[in-house]
């Protein structure tokens, strides 16, 4: 077994264990910590694919900023132990169906892209036609090829920020 494959299995196991523990933990803080483990394991997987920039941003944005906000809010509200209710009937049968459908979709995707996954594992890098693995490629894509969708998205985020500010200050007026 090669070293990258070994690292992959360790990271994949961490991600799955973290995700399962996220659901099973009783306390919100423990769930949030499990989610952080998942994020970091994912960042490690990106690094394994040669997508170093995406890996760093994954940790900075998701592991750092967003999860810190989660933890901050849980601490601020001092949220207690989660109350478990009996699972509703709606969630039972259709939920099971959805799980099967999702698993099928994932399996189909994996089967269809086996070749590119194998080549990625052999070279340790994304195929060059994608060109997203390197920082330069990503910036070229964002600021040249997809500059209008990108700017539209940032405009959307700006509107969301303004909306949040207005909602937070509503009581004063």
């Amino acid at each position, binding site marked *: 077994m090669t070293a990258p494959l070994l690292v992959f299995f360790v990271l994949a196991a961490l991600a799955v264990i973290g995700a399962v523990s996220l659901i099973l933990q009783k*306390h919100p*803080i*423990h769930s949030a*910590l499990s989610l*952080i483990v998942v994020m970091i394991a994912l*960042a490690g997987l990106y690094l394994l694919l040669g997508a*170093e*920039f995406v*890996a*760093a*941003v994954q*940790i*900075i944005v998701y*592991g*750092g*900023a967003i999860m*810190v*906000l989660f*933890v*901050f809010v849980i*601490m*601020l509200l*001092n949220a207690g132990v989660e109350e478990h209710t009996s699972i509703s009937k709606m969630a039972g049968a259709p939920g099971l169906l959805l799980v099967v459908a999702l698993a099928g979709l994932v399996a189909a995707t994996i089967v269809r892209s086996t070749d590119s996954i194998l080549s990625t594992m052999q070279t340790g890098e994304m195929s060059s036609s994608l060109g997203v693995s390197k*920082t330069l490629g990503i910036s070229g894509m964002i600021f040249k090829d997809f500059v209008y969708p990108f700017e539209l998205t940032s405009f959307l985020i700006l509107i969301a920020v303004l909306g949040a500010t207005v909602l937070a200050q509503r009581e004063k007026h």
Partner: protein
Amino acid sequence: MNAFLTTNAELIITLVKIALLLVIVLTVNAYLTWFERKVVAHMQSRWGPHRVGPHGLLQPLADGVKFLFKEDPTPAGVDKFVYYLAPMLALALALTSIALIPFGPDPIKLFGHDIYLGIAPPDVNIGILALFAITAMGVYGVALAGWSSNSKYPLLGGLRSSAQMISYELAMTMSVVGVLLMAGSFNLKKIIEAQAHHPECGIVGWNIWPQLLGFFCFFVSAVAETNRVPFDLPEAESELVAGFHTEYASFKFAMFFIAEYTSMITVSCLCTIMFFGGWLSPFPASWTFTHYVPSAILIPFGLWVIWDGIRYETIFGRIFLPGAGTAFAGIGAVLILLPSVNLFIQGPFWLLSKILVFLFIYVWMRGTLPRFRYDQLMAFGWKLLLPLSIVNVIATSFIILAKMTWWAK
């Protein structure tokens, strides 16, 4: 055995380097506490530690032993898992960030391997981003310690520190964008090399001149990120007892302490590398006589320690201090006699002296500045530092664009 050594040479070298750096960093941390206490004491017209060992030099050792042997009670009602996790997280993340710092330009050739100073290979493409990623995770150590203690003062300290670190992380990340634009790379080694446009430019080529605004924003927000005075609200002892680590005792408290001092070292390394030319000498490369600066500092310093030591009050001091002085002066003399070694240590020497200056500034600030009020802290971060660093980014990009379009033709 030999076959094992040759196939796993890289792994073994890295493990040895990790062990060495760990010992060095922890020792430096210990003596940083001595340095801080001594400097702050002299600023306040006191002597500082002077009982344990000559000039209090064994004080860090005594402190370490004390931390190890103190009773370590776990308060009732804490969330045990998180309570134990928090100090480990804080210390591990702080030490990990040191691993990414390159300490010198040239590798040592040993047994046919190029051994670079610093644990990470020098071609880490995302060096600075990886450092920011580790810093971003550093919030959890403090926040979780505050929450898991199940006590009101630590919780307040943890909340304050989360808010403070989120706020200042933005300004810190934005303020280095100017440097990254000028270097065109996230690689720490390339950032340093970009500051030596010409071998003769020396100190003039450093990023501090074009990026003065960026440096101001970076240093202030980095001090806030490390929770040091004047931004030490998470552990404000006059308001919160000891803030987030109130409920921690013994070595778990020491772990927070070591983490704080390690992040001080990391921030000093980053300031040096990004704005003050890293291992570059401040003199033009043709001034080869400046290669004797390390000797010119070490020999007089060693002689002064000898002179101070022979008159010291205790017998131990009269033996120890002249011995240490002889060692310093001896190293200085050896450097003059061995030009190749002298040439090799130039880079690490300048890097370490610049780091020492920044560590002194940290202590200096602690000795002189009062703590911010909480609303002042937030207003300073969001209303001054963040806009300033954005202005810096825009101005730098416009100048680089102008250079590319007009001057290059």
